[in-house]
């Protein structure tokens, strides 16, 4: 239970960030469809005015949104004509839940390994209030390592992911499909090595070469152990832009050392917001995080007049389960 206080802290900060940006955003007005041939950037309007609606409301609306590529044509790059993902997106909304919970696939014999904290054994006191985020790890690779607010950039030969709120980025090389090989030239890492190729208008990214430390999902003491991964983790991501207003993202996860079968994750969607950059936002690890995080979460909950349960519930929103 307490582990989720930490997530509350993170979610709060992201919410603070979003509200600061809200000052000059107008209430959402549906745009008029414009004539073919005009600049697509002029047709991008915010469907997500941060601060005007809550994160939960924004999620609901994004999840219910019906893509309209006629009104909001998919932007395309000038160099290869493929969908241009460039934009700042917030928040993440689940539009299709996983067919089965990831937890149901964990091998029984991994129990001790998970109990000890997986590839970072002993580092994270997950039965207390500690989480990987407090150690400045990127978010779960199941979430594409994306933070709450993320900027994507399409560039020749690359997709860039720039995170606000978790000081990390991903550089995803895009190659021709017949050249697509898992990268082996890098050191194993938290975010793995990515290589993407196009299948029609979908960017398919294979991510391997993980360092065995990331958690795929949170611990929920006392019942759910950390959803640890191994160096055999392989994730296939599918990125698409159904129209100019949203991106969609889904994953298939393999980790034969941890789970008994390939796991299909949720289909997630994010809405574009009317900015073209994200702010520098750094994570400073602090060895004395634990106590202070709990005190902060409790103080914030008290201020809002919420029960501990409400704070925990709010804090759990940012994590795919």
């Amino acid at each position: 239970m307490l582990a989720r206080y930490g997530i509350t802290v993170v979610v709060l900060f992201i919410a603070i960030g979003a509200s600061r940006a809200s000052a000059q955003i107008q209430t959402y007005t549906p745009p008029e469809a414009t004539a073919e041939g005009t600049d697509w950037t002029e047709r991008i309007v915010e469907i997500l005015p941060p601060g005007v609606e809550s994160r939960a409301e924004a999620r609901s609306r994004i999840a219910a949104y019906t893509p309209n590529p006629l009104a909001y044509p998919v932007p395309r790059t000038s160099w290869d004509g493929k969908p241009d993902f460039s934009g700042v997106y917030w928040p993440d909304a689940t539009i299709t839940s996983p067919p089965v919970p990831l937890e149901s696939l964990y091998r029984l014999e991994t129990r001790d390994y998970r109990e000890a904290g997986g590839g970072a054994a002993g580092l994270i006191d997950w039965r207390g209030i500690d989480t990987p985020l407090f150690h400045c790890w990127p978010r779960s690779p199941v979430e594409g390592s994306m933070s709450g607010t993320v900027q994507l950039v399409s560039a020749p030969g690359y997709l860039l992911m720039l995170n606000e709120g978790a000081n990390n980025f991903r550089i995803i090389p895009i190659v021709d499909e017949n050249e697509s090989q898992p990268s082996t030239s890098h050191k194993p890492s938290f975010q793995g090595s990515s290589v993407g190729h196009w299948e029609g208008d979908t960017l398919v990214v294979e991510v391997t070469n993980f360092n065995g430390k990331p958690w795929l999902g949170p611990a929920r003491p006392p019942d759910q152990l950390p959803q640890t991964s191994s160096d055999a983790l392989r994730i296939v991501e599918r990125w698409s832009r159904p129209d100019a207003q949203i991106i969609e993202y889904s994953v298939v996860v393999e980790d034969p050392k941890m789970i008994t079968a390939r796991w299909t994750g949720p289909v997630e969607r994010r809405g574009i917001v009317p900015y073209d950059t994200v702010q520098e936002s750094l994570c400073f690890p602090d060895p004395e995080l634990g106590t202070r995080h709990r005190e902060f979460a409790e103080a914030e909950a008290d201020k809002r007049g919420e029960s501990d349960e409400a704070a925990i519930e709010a804090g759990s929103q940012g994590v795919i389960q």
Partner: protein
Amino acid sequence: MSARAMTVIVGAVVIGAAVLVGLRVAVDEKSAIDSNSTRTDSVAMRTQWGEANLAGVWRAEPLGASVGRDTFDLTTLEGLYTPETRVRMTELSAEDDPTMRCAPPAFPRAAMLGHPIQIIQSPGFAFVFTEAYPVFRTIPTTGRPHTAAEYLYPTYMGDSTARWEGDTLVVDVTAFNGEGWLASAQDRPTNTSTGVWLSSDAMHVVERWRRIDADTLEYQARVEDPAMLTLPWETPTVTFERQSGDRIEEVMCRPEDGPATYLARIG
């Protein structure tokens, strides 16, 4: 928000403030689609939209200073500090270098560390990534103004905007948070060096990035800091060589590594 809460924010997970407001950059008229357009284009001297192409993974030799050997003209920089700043610097030590707390070194310091950097360009932007710390710089290349003051948030890497002077990208950087050091503690060009290299939030950096041939990128910066330096400091030109590979390594500054490990890595 209480002071206590602020402490937690600063000391713990510092999540950034607002996304910046800015003009959307219109994609210019569509150019002809090049069937050979993949990363081989990063070696081309020009992007498909006609700018000088700075993209690539680059690395320069480590630069720095010890007595009798100064490869980054830090002797000059040291001489430019005001007397008041010098006094402050004698009261600090290597442990006060913010990189000891996992704060990223800003440019030009980041250019002298000898670690790879990666530049990727998209229409209207250049992005600079460093392997010394997981932080990115977003550099608008259209000559647009700096981020509006009401949204400006002082940062370690500063707020960048750039314009092209011919094929040289001239980047104007302001809004530093005044925490960063201009060089490292082991840089001691003279017998009286403190190894402390303060900067202030008045710092203003003008960088010049220029690709001189297929595999060479030049960097030079002018550092003004009227609160601490009596005159602007011009860095020597740093020569970056192209590296193989399509991206830099992931680097994390993690508490389990300890500051000593981190310092060793960037030293």
